[in-house]
Protein backbone atom coordinates (compact mmCIF):
# COMPACT_ATOMS: atom_id res chain seq x y z
CA UNK A 1 0.00 0.00 0.00
CA UNK A 2 1.48 3.35 -0.99
CA UNK A 3 -0.58 5.44 1.40
CA UNK A 4 0.08 6.11 5.05
CA UNK A 5 -2.60 6.25 7.70
CA UNK A 6 -2.58 6.02 11.45
CA UNK A 7 -4.86 5.39 14.37
CA UNK A 8 -4.13 6.31 17.94
CA UNK A 9 -4.69 5.03 21.44
CA UNK A 10 -4.02 6.87 24.67
CA UNK A 11 -3.72 5.12 27.98
CA UNK A 12 -2.25 6.40 31.24
CA UNK A 13 -0.24 9.11 29.56
CA UNK A 14 1.11 6.89 26.78
CA UNK A 15 0.01 7.80 23.26
CA UNK A 16 0.37 4.98 20.75
CA UNK A 17 0.27 5.86 17.06
CA UNK A 18 -0.29 2.82 14.85
CA UNK A 19 1.11 3.63 11.43
CA UNK A 20 -0.11 1.65 8.44
CA UNK A 21 1.23 1.65 4.90
CA UNK A 22 4.32 3.12 3.29
CA UNK A 23 6.44 5.88 4.79
CA UNK A 24 8.16 7.99 2.16
CA UNK A 25 8.63 11.70 1.51
CA UNK A 26 5.20 11.93 -0.12
CA UNK A 27 3.14 10.12 2.49
CA UNK A 28 4.89 11.52 5.52
CA UNK A 29 3.79 15.09 4.91
CA UNK A 30 0.17 14.92 6.11
CA UNK A 31 0.74 12.36 8.85
CA UNK A 32 3.54 14.33 10.48
CA UNK A 33 1.38 17.40 11.13
CA UNK A 34 -1.53 15.37 12.41
CA UNK A 35 0.66 13.37 14.80
CA UNK A 36 2.17 16.61 16.10
CA UNK A 37 -1.26 18.14 16.63
CA UNK A 38 -2.21 15.11 18.72
CA UNK A 39 1.04 15.19 20.68
CA UNK A 40 0.56 18.83 21.61
CA UNK A 41 -3.10 18.26 22.45
CA UNK A 42 -2.62 15.08 24.52
CA UNK A 43 0.75 15.99 26.11
CA UNK A 44 1.64 12.33 26.74
CA UNK A 45 4.70 11.47 28.80
CA UNK A 46 5.51 8.84 26.19
CA UNK A 47 4.80 8.47 22.50
CA UNK A 48 4.89 5.02 20.95
CA UNK A 49 5.17 4.71 17.19
CA UNK A 50 3.87 1.27 16.27
CA UNK A 51 5.41 0.34 12.92
CA UNK A 52 3.99 -3.17 12.83
CA UNK A 53 1.89 -2.45 9.75
CA UNK A 54 4.48 -0.36 7.92
CA UNK A 55 5.37 -2.28 4.80
CA UNK A 56 7.90 0.21 3.43
CA UNK A 57 10.05 2.94 4.91
CA UNK A 58 12.87 4.94 3.40
CA UNK A 59 14.92 7.63 5.12
CA UNK A 60 11.95 10.00 5.07
CA UNK A 61 10.59 7.72 7.77
CA UNK A 62 13.74 8.43 9.75
CA UNK A 63 12.95 12.12 9.42
CA UNK A 64 9.46 11.42 10.74
CA UNK A 65 10.87 9.50 13.70
CA UNK A 66 13.62 12.00 14.51
CA UNK A 67 11.24 14.93 14.17
CA UNK A 68 8.77 13.31 16.59
CA UNK A 69 11.64 12.49 18.95
CA UNK A 70 12.52 16.18 19.02
CA UNK A 71 8.90 17.23 19.59
CA UNK A 72 8.28 14.83 22.46
CA UNK A 73 11.70 15.51 24.01
CA UNK A 74 10.92 19.23 24.03
CA UNK A 75 7.80 18.35 26.06
CA UNK A 76 9.87 16.26 28.47
CA UNK A 77 8.57 12.96 27.15
CA UNK A 78 10.04 9.84 25.62
CA UNK A 79 9.68 8.11 22.26
CA UNK A 80 9.49 4.37 21.75
CA UNK A 81 9.40 2.48 18.48
CA UNK A 82 7.75 -0.93 18.29
CA UNK A 83 6.96 -3.47 15.60
CA UNK A 84 9.81 -2.76 13.21
CA UNK A 85 10.42 -5.19 10.38
CA UNK A 86 14.00 -6.21 9.66
CA UNK A 87 14.06 -3.85 6.68
CA UNK A 88 12.81 -0.86 8.68
CA UNK A 89 15.24 -1.65 11.48
CA UNK A 90 18.09 -1.69 8.95
CA UNK A 91 17.52 1.99 8.20
CA UNK A 92 17.11 2.91 11.85
CA UNK A 93 20.38 1.17 12.70
CA UNK A 94 22.19 2.88 9.80
CA UNK A 95 21.39 6.24 11.34
CA UNK A 96 22.33 5.19 14.86
CA UNK A 97 18.92 6.35 16.07
CA UNK A 98 18.53 3.08 17.98
CA UNK A 99 21.29 4.28 20.32
CA UNK A 100 19.07 7.02 21.74
CA UNK A 101 15.51 6.00 20.82
CA UNK A 102 14.04 2.95 22.55
CA UNK A 103 13.24 0.21 20.06
CA UNK A 104 11.17 -2.67 21.34
CA UNK A 105 10.04 -5.98 19.96
CA UNK A 106 6.87 -6.40 18.00
CA UNK A 107 3.86 -5.09 19.85
CA UNK A 108 5.49 -5.54 23.23
CA UNK A 109 4.65 -2.02 24.22
CA UNK A 110 1.10 -2.42 23.07
CA UNK A 111 0.74 -5.60 25.13
CA UNK A 112 2.05 -3.67 28.13
CA UNK A 113 -0.55 -0.97 27.58
CA UNK A 114 -3.37 -3.47 27.15
CA UNK A 115 -2.37 -5.20 30.38
CA UNK A 116 -2.21 -1.92 32.35
Amino acid sequence: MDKLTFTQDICEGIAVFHLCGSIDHHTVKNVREEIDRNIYRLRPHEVVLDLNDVEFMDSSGLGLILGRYTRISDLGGALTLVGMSDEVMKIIRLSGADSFIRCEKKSEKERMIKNA
Partner: protein
Amino acid sequence: MLKNSANSVKMQLDSRSVNEAFSRAALAAFLSPLDPDFGEMCDLRTAISEAVTNCIVHGYKGNGGIIYINLSYYDDRTVKIAVRDKGCGIEDIKQAMQPLFTTDRSGERGGMGFTVMKSFCDKMRVKSKVGKGTSVFMEKKLR
Protein backbone atom coordinates in the same frame (compact mmCIF):
# COMPACT_ATOMS: atom_id res chain seq x y z
CA MET B 1 19.49 -0.13 -25.81
CA LEU B 2 22.39 -0.53 -23.41
CA LYS B 3 25.27 -2.61 -24.67
CA ASN B 4 25.05 -6.21 -23.47
CA SER B 5 22.12 -5.59 -21.15
CA ALA B 6 19.58 -8.39 -20.93
CA ASN B 7 16.86 -5.78 -20.54
CA SER B 8 16.60 -2.03 -20.08
CA VAL B 9 13.96 0.59 -19.50
CA LYS B 10 14.04 4.37 -19.63
CA MET B 11 11.50 6.53 -17.85
CA GLN B 12 10.87 10.22 -17.45
CA LEU B 13 8.85 11.21 -14.42
CA ASP B 14 7.44 14.53 -13.36
CA SER B 15 9.24 15.68 -10.22
CA ARG B 16 6.24 15.02 -8.00
CA SER B 17 6.44 13.26 -4.67
CA VAL B 18 3.60 10.93 -5.62
CA ASN B 19 5.98 9.44 -8.19
CA GLU B 20 8.29 8.15 -5.48
CA ALA B 21 5.97 5.18 -5.04
CA PHE B 22 5.65 4.81 -8.80
CA SER B 23 9.42 4.52 -9.19
CA ARG B 24 9.46 1.72 -6.59
CA ALA B 25 6.62 -0.11 -8.30
CA ALA B 26 8.20 0.32 -11.73
CA LEU B 27 11.50 -1.07 -10.49
CA ALA B 28 9.76 -4.04 -8.87
CA ALA B 29 7.89 -4.80 -12.08
CA PHE B 30 11.04 -4.45 -14.16
CA LEU B 31 13.00 -6.83 -11.91
CA SER B 32 10.27 -9.44 -11.47
CA PRO B 33 11.61 -11.71 -14.25
CA LEU B 34 14.78 -12.05 -12.15
CA ASP B 35 12.76 -13.17 -9.13
CA PRO B 36 14.89 -11.27 -6.60
CA ASP B 37 14.57 -12.34 -2.99
CA PHE B 38 12.56 -10.20 -0.62
CA GLY B 39 15.56 -8.51 1.00
CA GLU B 40 17.18 -7.61 -2.31
CA MET B 41 13.95 -6.19 -3.65
CA CYS B 42 13.45 -4.12 -0.48
CA ASP B 43 16.99 -2.77 -0.71
CA LEU B 44 16.62 -1.72 -4.32
CA ARG B 45 13.13 -0.24 -3.86
CA THR B 46 14.47 1.80 -0.97
CA ALA B 47 17.51 2.91 -2.97
CA ILE B 48 15.47 4.16 -5.92
CA SER B 49 13.01 5.85 -3.56
CA GLU B 50 15.90 7.74 -1.96
CA ALA B 51 17.33 8.81 -5.32
CA VAL B 52 14.00 10.03 -6.67
CA THR B 53 13.25 11.85 -3.42
CA ASN B 54 16.61 13.61 -3.63
CA CYS B 55 15.74 14.86 -7.13
CA ILE B 56 12.42 16.23 -5.89
CA VAL B 57 13.53 17.72 -2.57
CA HIS B 58 17.04 18.88 -3.39
CA GLY B 59 17.53 18.84 -7.16
CA TYR B 60 14.38 20.69 -8.05
CA LYS B 61 13.67 22.01 -4.53
CA GLY B 62 10.00 21.10 -4.78
CA ASN B 63 9.54 22.95 -8.05
CA GLY B 64 8.84 21.33 -11.41
CA GLY B 65 11.26 19.27 -13.37
CA ILE B 66 11.81 15.91 -15.00
CA ILE B 67 13.47 12.94 -13.35
CA TYR B 68 15.22 10.59 -15.74
CA ILE B 69 15.50 6.95 -14.73
CA ASN B 70 17.38 4.21 -16.53
CA LEU B 71 16.97 0.65 -15.35
CA SER B 72 18.90 -2.27 -16.72
CA TYR B 73 19.90 -5.78 -15.84
CA TYR B 74 22.45 -8.14 -17.28
CA ASP B 75 22.82 -11.88 -17.75
CA ASP B 76 24.94 -12.15 -14.60
CA ARG B 77 22.00 -10.69 -12.60
CA THR B 78 23.65 -7.31 -12.11
CA VAL B 79 21.06 -4.58 -11.81
CA LYS B 80 21.91 -1.00 -12.66
CA ILE B 81 19.81 2.00 -11.68
CA ALA B 82 20.58 5.50 -12.90
CA VAL B 83 18.56 8.45 -11.61
CA ARG B 84 19.22 11.89 -13.03
CA ASP B 85 17.87 15.40 -12.59
CA LYS B 86 18.65 18.69 -14.28
CA GLY B 87 18.26 20.61 -11.07
CA CYS B 88 20.53 22.77 -8.99
CA GLY B 89 23.37 20.30 -8.58
CA ILE B 90 25.49 19.63 -5.50
CA GLU B 91 28.30 21.97 -4.48
CA ASP B 92 30.19 19.52 -2.30
CA ILE B 93 29.40 15.89 -3.10
CA LYS B 94 31.66 14.53 -0.35
CA GLN B 95 29.86 16.63 2.25
CA ALA B 96 26.45 15.74 0.86
CA MET B 97 27.24 12.06 1.19
CA GLN B 98 28.11 12.26 4.87
CA PRO B 99 25.54 10.45 7.01
CA LEU B 100 22.97 12.78 8.58
CA PHE B 101 24.19 15.77 6.53
CA THR B 102 21.31 17.70 5.02
CA THR B 103 20.80 21.18 3.65
CA ASP B 104 17.19 21.01 4.82
CA ARG B 105 16.51 23.29 7.77
CA SER B 106 13.06 22.03 8.74
CA GLY B 107 14.44 19.34 11.03
CA GLU B 108 12.32 16.79 9.23
CA ARG B 109 14.89 15.36 6.83
CA GLY B 110 17.11 12.58 8.14
CA GLY B 111 20.07 13.30 5.83
CA MET B 112 20.49 9.58 5.23
CA GLY B 113 19.52 9.30 1.56
CA PHE B 114 22.99 8.78 0.12
CA THR B 115 24.02 6.60 3.06
CA VAL B 116 21.05 4.32 2.43
CA MET B 117 21.76 4.12 -1.30
CA LYS B 118 25.41 3.31 -0.64
CA SER B 119 24.59 0.69 2.02
CA PHE B 120 21.85 -1.03 0.07
CA CYS B 121 23.75 -1.34 -3.22
CA ASP B 122 27.07 -2.90 -4.14
CA LYS B 123 28.24 0.26 -5.90
CA MET B 124 27.02 3.84 -5.85
CA ARG B 125 28.43 6.84 -7.63
CA VAL B 126 27.31 10.46 -7.80
CA LYS B 127 28.06 12.95 -10.55
CA SER B 128 26.93 16.52 -10.18
CA LYS B 129 27.49 20.00 -11.49
CA VAL B 130 26.07 23.12 -9.88
CA GLY B 131 23.40 24.60 -12.09
CA LYS B 132 23.32 21.54 -14.35
CA GLY B 133 22.02 18.67 -12.26
CA THR B 134 22.90 15.43 -10.52
CA SER B 135 23.18 11.81 -11.61
CA VAL B 136 23.23 8.86 -9.26
CA PHE B 137 24.39 5.47 -10.48
CA MET B 138 23.67 2.38 -8.40
CA GLU B 139 24.53 -1.22 -9.00
CA LYS B 140 23.66 -4.44 -7.23
CA LYS B 141 24.24 -8.03 -8.20
CA LEU B 142 21.32 -10.25 -7.27
CA ARG B 143 21.86 -13.67 -5.75
